[in-house]
């Protein structure tokens, strides 16, 4: 008795050995009795074999130039001075003292400023929501892709302060 015919998707999964054991056995038993589904299965199997045949015929050796270029690139990276090395070279005795003084003072004021501003920075939920919405621009039917999004009609007081201090605006993210 031929049961329900197999779908193309089932046959593809069966071909790749991705069906659970019971379903796999069911398809096998069905194929033994159903010429129609066997023809579909053979069709899928031919496609896979064509792909493998193509892969075999188009396989190339790793070009020697690639291996050489990998080692060249790594060697260039290892030779390039890091930022600390450049700084060490820059801090010659003639400049060291006044620069060191600037650094110390800068560190002191920086520490003081940081210490004073140890209070937590609050990021309003609206900023996360807008940042999330802005990345929708690459979604096929996202509001930023084929249609512009709504501008929010209100701005919180904290966002106004941020605008004033940074010169940027959350409004710019509303597309």
């Amino acid at each position, binding site marked *: 008795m031929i049961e329900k015919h197999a779908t193309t998707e089932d046959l593809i999964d069966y071909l790749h050995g991705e069906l659970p054991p019971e379903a796999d056995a069911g398809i096998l038993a069905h194929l033994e009795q159903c010429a129609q589904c066997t023809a579909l299965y053979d069709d899928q199997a031919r496609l896979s074999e064509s792909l493998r*045949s193509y892969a075999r015929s188009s396989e190339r050796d790793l070009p020697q130039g690639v291996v050489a270029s990998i080692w060249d690139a790594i060697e260039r990276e290892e030779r390039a001075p890091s930022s600390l090395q450049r700084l060490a070279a820059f801090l010659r005795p003639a400049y060291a003292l006044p620069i060191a003084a600037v650094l110390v003072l800068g560190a002191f004021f920086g520490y003081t400023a940081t210490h004073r501003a140890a209070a937590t920075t609050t*990021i309003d939920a609206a900023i996360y929501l807008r940042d999330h919405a802005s990345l929708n621009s*690459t979604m096929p039917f996202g509001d930023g892709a084929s249609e512009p999004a709504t501008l929010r009609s209100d701005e919180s007081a*904290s966002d106004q302060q941020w605008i004033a201090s940074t010169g940027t605006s959350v409004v*710019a993210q509303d597309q």
Partner: protein
Amino acid sequence: MRKISSALALAALVTATAGATPQASPTALLRAAIAAPKHLSYTGEVQVLRFGTQRSEAAIYRIEHRAPDLTRRWYLAPQNLYGDSVISRGETTYSIDVKRDRVIVAQDDAIDDQVAEDDNFAVLASNYNAAFAPDEQYDGRPVRVVVLTNKYTGQTTMRLRIDAKTNLVLAKETYAANGALSTQVRFQQIRYAQQIPAGVFDVPKGMHVVQGPSRGLPSSDLQHVIAAAGFAAHGPKYLPEGFTPVEGDVVDIKGIRTLHLLYSDGIRTVSLFQNQGASDIGFESYHASSTKIENHEAKYVEDGATTLLAWSESGLHFTLVGELSLGELEKIASSVIP
């Protein structure tokens, strides 16, 4: 994998399928709809409605679009936006604020990212069944109606009305997880123009120019982005069926270095923000409710189709935002640091 050997497998394959004629499909129409603005110039009025749980929003703007990538939107409502406009020139956007007499310039490489658009459409086509609903008349024009249904949940997620002649999307509706209407975008008085003068898209002179946030091309190598965050960052181990990583980048929010990872199933998206240090999340604009993520206190906001969930764990502050239910976000959250 099972194998059969066939010396002329490909020839047999071609012979077996010869004669089949491809027919127009809902998916092909969607593809054409995405591409339509690249070769169509048009003007009209757009109405946007967003229905949230806590508040709803509406806007109306006039639009002029010159193919392939010049667009001007001039706001008619709400009142505090009246007179403002946004001019997009490829990847650069100019937000003109007449009340403050300033122009905010922002760059986003992702806007004109054709490859990402192609990839994301492939994800959409993998996760959603597209089917035609009966044709309609809309704004005096015949339209094809395409309904997108999630393959895993069986839920209708989006309905599009597409101009039968030009393939431009004239109306779009999206639905929340419970089936409620979430957003509605509608064109009115659409007119297709052969040519719109380029001067329409010039940025007004004499206004104070402010550099807005610029977003370079995010990376699709999420593991690389996580490693470059500057702190011991994490990605989710669980995602709903059909979701795939899209991109990630490290952004500066109010001086706090923040990792942003984006995942999508082609229509719905979910972002995971995380940062370290002295920061917390404020809910000045929304009313937040409390919940727990594995014994950690958490706050959430449900706003129409979008849910936000925030919690702190292991010295990191996490915020999930997505077009998913609270339950789904909680499952994702629990998997971030198992």
